[in-house]
């Protein structure tokens, strides 16, 4: 038998009764590169956990059907044996940081296999060379960036020499440079014959590398084939968003499914000019919030250096930059969680100085990367009222408006902790807006969100800005930010190196390169065509 993975009529229900998968049958051969797509809750992560025995051995639940990994039934084989065949890199690389240093972390898997020390050392060297992480070997894991941690987590499972490498949303928290590097690693592993399975919401990151695409919808396989063939269908019926190049081609009425920039250019040149329209710029009036030459150093490292940014009511500003550029720090300075060592942050013209956080919270709301951290009430309704109560500005009419705006009506009596990630984020935004701030700050609002949630969030933020709130968010998602923002501010090594309309920023290749950004598809096509035109002249 040639297949490394065989799922035969697999149905799974979680311990709490939540449905996981329904009658899933598939087979994966060595050397395949499979991208598994689907909306949140469609069963992608469940499938990954079934392949290496985490389900049912760790999670329990009700599993019927049969899963064979290299001929071994996962129900009868413990996960530590299956880990030699299927390496699984989970969504949160921090929870896979199991040792203090990188070298020790890479060594843990082989050590658990009972290999001798010389072989363990050889595996560590081999994986470090493959992933180009030799300089990190002696580093403490807590000092690594998100992208570096991701590579170490992948290295940790590769050190087990698995035949199949499964990655659950590996691109969610990576900047453009990290994403390029991960793509290169996956390409290399694929060339070496490792079967690769990637679950991902941002299909553009990986679909051109894949040989096969599987779409899961409500726990069932609804499409399975070559990526181009699957994407030629209307994937929105399954809550998916086609990659931007495919969407652009469709919007231009072009009957093609380009997966790479070169393919897109080819079809565009065959079909004339595609409609390309950057969003309008809203001129800045008097700012509601401003960072004035703000500097901050932490642990002997300069995080922000004379950063200068201001936002007017109704503006939507995307703060973009590589991992570690200082985006989160800028936001935390905006609501007083951090105080600048030099310069000043002003809210409606007044420096926040040493004003207490609760006072600043009346004007500035912040939704962090993990909205679950700010939710504590028994129901969504209570959650919405908690902030205004604390600030003694409870206004039920305003809260009703927020419930409508954030579409929270069906969730009001539910526990915020039992909601999906997208719903939790909407509740968190609603809970912050309930206190009637004039500035809303968001940190990586689209990380890990599926297409429907990203679309809903875009609509919501547009509505909020229309109400006169200044919206400022940090993101790596240039595609999403391009469609939404009136302005981009580019952070590089703690400095705001550029600010302007997304189109104006995209027209500056030096800035894009310096900040290691990925151009939105529309702009990438535009720039590439301009280059070609210049070449022809």
């Amino acid at each position, binding site marked *: 038998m040639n297949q490394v993975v065989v799922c035969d009529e697999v149905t799974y229900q979680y311990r709490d009764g939540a449905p996981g998968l329904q009658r899933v049958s598939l087979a994966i051969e060595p050397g395949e590169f499979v991208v598994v797509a689907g909306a949140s809750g469609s069963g992608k992560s469940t499938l990954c956990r079934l392949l290496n025995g985490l389900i049912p051995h*760790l999670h329990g639940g009700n599993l019927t059907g049969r899963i064979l990994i290299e001929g071994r039934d996962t129900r009868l084989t413990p996960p530590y044996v299956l880990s030699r065949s299927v390496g699984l890199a989970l969504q949160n690389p921090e929870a896979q940081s199991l040792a203090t240093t990188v070298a020790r972390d890479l060594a843990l898997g082989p050590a658990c296999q009972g290999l001798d020390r010389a072989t363990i050392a050889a595996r560590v060297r081999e994986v470090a060379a493959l992933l180009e992480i030799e300089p990190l070997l002696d580093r403490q894991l807590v000092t690594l960036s998100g992208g570096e941690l991701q590579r170490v987590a992948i290295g940790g499972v590769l050190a087990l020499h698995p035949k199949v490498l499964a990655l659950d949303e590996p691109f969610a928290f990576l900047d453009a440079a990290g994403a390029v590097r991960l793509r290169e690693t996956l390409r290399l592993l694929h060339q070496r014959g490792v079967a690769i399975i990637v679950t991902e919401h941002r299909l553009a990151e990986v679909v051109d590398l894949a040989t096969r695409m599987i779409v899961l919808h409500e726990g069932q396989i609804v499409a399975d084939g070559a990526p181009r063939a699957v994407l030629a269908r209307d994937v929105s019926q399954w809550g998916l968003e086609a990659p931007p190049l495919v969407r652009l081609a469709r919007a231009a009425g072009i009957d093609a499914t380009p997966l790479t920039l070169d393919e897109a250019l080819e079809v565009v040149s065959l079909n004339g000019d595609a409609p390309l329209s950057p969003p309008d710029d809203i001129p800045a009036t008097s700012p509601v919030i401003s960072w004035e030459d703000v500097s901050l150093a932490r642990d002997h490292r300069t995080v922000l250096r004379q950063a200068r940014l201001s936002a007017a009511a109704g503006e939507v500003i995307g703060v973009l930059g590589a991992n570690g550029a200082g985006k989160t720090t800028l936001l935390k300075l905006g609501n007083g969680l951090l105080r600048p060592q030099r310069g000043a942050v002003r809210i409606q013209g007044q420096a926040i100085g040493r004003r207490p956080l609760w006072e600043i919270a009346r004007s500035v709301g912040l939704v962090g990367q993990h909205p679950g951290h700010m939710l504590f009430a028994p129901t969504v309704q209570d959650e919405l009222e908690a902030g205004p109560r604390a600030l003694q500005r409870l206004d039920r009419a305003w809260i009703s408006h927020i419930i409508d705006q954030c579409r929270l009506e069906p969730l009001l009596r539910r526990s915020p902790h039992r909601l999906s990630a997208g719903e939790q984020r909407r509740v968190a935004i609603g809970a912050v807006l309930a206190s009637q701030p004039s500035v809303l700050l968001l940190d990586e609002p689209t990380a890990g969100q599926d297409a429907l949630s990203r679309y809903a969030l875009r609509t919501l933020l547009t509505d909020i800005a229309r109400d006169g709130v200044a919206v400022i968010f940090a993101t790596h998602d240039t595609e999403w930010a391009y469609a939404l923002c009136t302005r981009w501010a580019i952070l590089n090594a703690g400095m705001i190196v550029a600010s302007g309309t997304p189109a104006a920023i995209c027209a500056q290749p030096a800035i894009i390169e310096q900040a290691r950004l990925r151009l939105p598809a529309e702009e990438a096509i535009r720039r590439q065509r301009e280059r070609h035109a210049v070449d022809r002249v």
Partner: protein
Amino acid sequence: MNIELRFDPRAKALAYLIGSAAIILTLDLIRLAVLSGVLAALLIGSGLGRRWLRVMRVLLPTLLLFALVAGWSGGYEAAIGAALRLAALVGAGVVFFGLTPPEELGDALLASGIPSQMAFLLEGALRFTPMMGTLAREVYEAQASRGIRFDGRHLLRNGPLLLTPLLLSVVRFADELAEGLETRGFGSPQRTPLREHRLNWRDGALVGVTLLLTILFVW
């Protein structure tokens, strides 16, 4: 070779326990001050002074309360003794944990024949405690950003609000950690210690000297 690797973690653990007993049992104030001086030299020599200061800054209210209660019943000498003892115990902990990487301790326990899971339990407790601190800070920041106050008397009323998201985050993290461990084959009955640990004369000397000092101070 630095002090981290010069001694076997088991010897360091034993010396730490004996040293802690010495701090608790030394009643004479002058001897306690000398003992604290030895610890201070160790802290400075090993570059862990700043870490001790950071911990002490957090513990300062507890330390003052401790001294106040002791002083109330036993006078100023008892108050000074109580404060010094607590500071010295923290110092001993900082020296031990600062010079003993959790995996070293885990490896040494494995080498002693302790089951892999049991060794990781201790190793994990040391390794992930700082991470829990980070999680607690993130939850606090998220709540404070909404205008929930935790200063002064507000801490009593609003403090419990931190518990729900913190507990849920810890449980979620523990679940993810369990998955992370399983994906690395942690359930395997055999795990190779990454370093060979053999007790030698240096380890004996470390325990012996600590024991001797303890007897001298306590006597």
